[in-house]
């Protein structure tokens, strides 16, 4: 058995979570490594969750929100974008590879994009190896 | 049977040190070491930091004299950025610095050193301390605590923080003084001046007179001296001036802090983290031999009192004259550091008042415009424990790319080692030693207030 990473995906209720539902309805298949945590908006995502998840052994963290200018709450995804640029930089400060974090825009109509995002992330993290390897 | 006495920690000093006295088979002193135990690495971890932030980091080198590091650092960054503080900013900084000297001297003399004299070097360790002093001389103790507190709170109130200050800023000072503050500070400082004069009298009459024999002898060594003087008239300066390096024979050279590298060097021994500063310009090398030391000079109160031509304030000048008539110039006795310290206490109070009475002190123009840029700057001030040198190089973003720090105590590490050796080998003979004797060895260190 190879390394099966655990990836936490924070999904906006209005878009990515719906896209994930739709991927199911369309019976699209994707790696089983993602655990979705539903948020009302990608702007709800506190960067602390990313650090928490990684420190508790998540091998990767994704945030999936609505396309820019399509946020239900006006500009929540811009907040997520601003934060994620920063999170990527801080990951290095805290000793994680920045590749362990990913932000993707997925509309509720894009199950394929959702599937592609989680599949690529899984592949990327598998290449990267377990998160705990990095520490110490 | 040979053995080692480990006096650890050296107490009632600021810092982490241990004295190791190596006795030979006959119980006589073979060698002594003052091991400096701690290394934190400020020179390195300020690298990369924006230079204007550094004065707020390096003050943590010392919690007793944070103002000195804070301001030396500010001066260094000013110079690296090519900024000249406004006259009022400059004076406000000096006022804070000399005010910080006041507290430090009260602290050192009464809290740390006085128990040895008031309660006696041989008193039991459980009472030979400030707590014991409170019981022995409650009124004095109360007064001392009150005065120190007054000084600290004045600084705290005006400059936000007394410990690890923040009000000195690149280009000047963070806030102007308003008239109300000036009045309040003046009133407080006048009270402190009264106390300073009282303390000096108290020490001359009740301490130095009583312990003249010890003073003349304990840890006595013969060295050169380094201290800051006024560029014009050679009088005592603490915040800004040129440096004077004096040989034990009284001859001297004067130089600007910027050129320190041509005059002094640092020697490293494998048994202590602190480097030992010596006079490179004398071109005789470094040697701590008690009989014929090479390159050794001392800093701190005694050094400053020795190198200066005079003191610009009247009461301190009178005290200096009395001191010189008793002990000559340069005075070498180690325990005279205490005496010199109290003269500086009076000077500090007088100087603070002088600054507060300067008409421009309440001018709102306290900070000059600065632009971060590449450069190099050396900031020198006189800390209670000696000449403090901060030397920074900045990159084009105005961040520190290199730093060299020489803190007051390091100049005195070599002389302290010598004083310890001198004291130990004088006091310990044929395996006879006691707690009291060992405390006297420590007193030789304590005089330097490391």
């Amino acid at each position: 058995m190879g390394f099966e990473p655990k990836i936490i995906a924070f999904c906006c209720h209005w878009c990515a979570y719906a896209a994930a539902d739709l991927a199911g309805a369309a019976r699209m298949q994707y790696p089983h490594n993602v655990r979705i945590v539903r948020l009302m908006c990608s702007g709800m995502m506190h960067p602390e969750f990313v650090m928490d998840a990684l420190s508790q052994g998540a091998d990767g963290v994704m945030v999936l929100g609505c396309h820019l200018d399509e946020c239900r709450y006006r500009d929540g995804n811009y907040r997520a974008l601003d934060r994620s640029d920063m999170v990527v930089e801080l990951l290095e400060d805290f000793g994680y590879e920045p590749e362990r974090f990913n932000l993707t825009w997925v509309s509720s109509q894009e199950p394929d994009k959702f599937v592609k995002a989680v599949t690529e992330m899984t592949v990327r993290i598998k290449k990267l190896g377990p998160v705990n390897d990095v520490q110490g | 049977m040979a053995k080692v006495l480990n006096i650890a920690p050296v107490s009632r000093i600021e810092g982490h040190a241990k004295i190791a006295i190596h006795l030979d088979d006959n119980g006589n002193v073979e060698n002594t070491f003052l091991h400096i135990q701690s290394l934190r690495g400020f020179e390195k971890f300020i690298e990369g930091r924006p230079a204007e932030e550094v004065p707020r980091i390096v003050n943590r080198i010392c919690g007793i004299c944070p103002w000195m590091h804070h301001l030396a650092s500010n001066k260094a960054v000013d110079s690296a950025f090519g900024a000249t503080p406004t006259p009022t900013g400059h004076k406000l900084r000096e006022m804070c610095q000399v005010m910080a000297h006041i507290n430090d001297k009260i602290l050192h003399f009464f809290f740390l050193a006085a128990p040895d004299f008031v309660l006696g070097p041989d008193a039991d360790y459980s009472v030979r301390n400030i707590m014991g002093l409170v019981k022995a001389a409650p009124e004095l103790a109360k007064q001392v605590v009150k005065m120190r507190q007054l000084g600290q709170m004045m600084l705290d109130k005006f400059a936000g923080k007394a410990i690890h200050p923040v009000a000195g800023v690149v280009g000047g000072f963070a806030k102007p003084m308003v008239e109300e503050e000036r009045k309040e500070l003046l009133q407080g400082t006048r009270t402190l001046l009264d106390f300073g004069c009282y303390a000096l009298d108290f020490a001359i009459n009740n301490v130095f007179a009583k312990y003249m024999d010890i003073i003349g002898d304990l840890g006595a060594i013969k060295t050169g001296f380094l201290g800051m003087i006024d560029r014009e008239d050679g009088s005592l300066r603490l915040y800004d001036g040129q440096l004077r390096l004096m040989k034990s024979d009284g001859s001297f050279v004067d130089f600007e802090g910027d050129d320190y590298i041509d005059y002094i060097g640092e020697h490293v021994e494998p048994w202590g983290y602190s480097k030992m500063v010596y006079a490179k310009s004398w071109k005789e090398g470094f040697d701590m031999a008690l009989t014929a030391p090479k390159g050794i000079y001392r800093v701190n109160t005694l050094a400053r009192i020795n190198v200066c031509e005079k003191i610009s304030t009247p009461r301190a000048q009178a005290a200096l004259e009395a001191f010189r008539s008793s002990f000559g110039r340069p005075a070498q006795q180690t325990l005279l550091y205490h005496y010199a310290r109290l003269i500086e206490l009076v000077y500090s109070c007088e100087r603070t008042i002088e600054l507060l009475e300067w008409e421009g002190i309440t001018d709102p123009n306290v900070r000059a415009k600065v632009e971060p840029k590449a450069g190099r700057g050396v900031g020198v001030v006189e800390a209670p424990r000696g000449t403090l040198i901060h030397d920074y190089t900045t990159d084009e973003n105005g961040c520190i790319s290199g730093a060299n720090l020489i803190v007051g105590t390091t100049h005195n590490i070599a002389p302290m080692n010598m004083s310890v050796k001198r004291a130990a080998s004088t006091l310990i003979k044929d395996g006879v030693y006691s707690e009291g004797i060992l405390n006297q060895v420590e007193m030789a260190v304590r005089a330097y207030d490391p």
Partner: protein
Amino acid sequence: MLITKKIGSVMIVGGGVTGIQAALDLADSGFFVYLVEKSGAIGGAMSQLDKIFPTNDCSM
């Protein structure tokens, strides 16, 4: 003149985005709404468009 009582219900013919909007507004203003759609589901032509249709929320 004959006064007849008005009925507090509306029929909306067409379940596209227009009909849905009219239905929502009327239902929200206190009228009973019949939304009549010819095909098997509401949504109209707009549901066929790829973009400009970020969420399906207008149809609930």
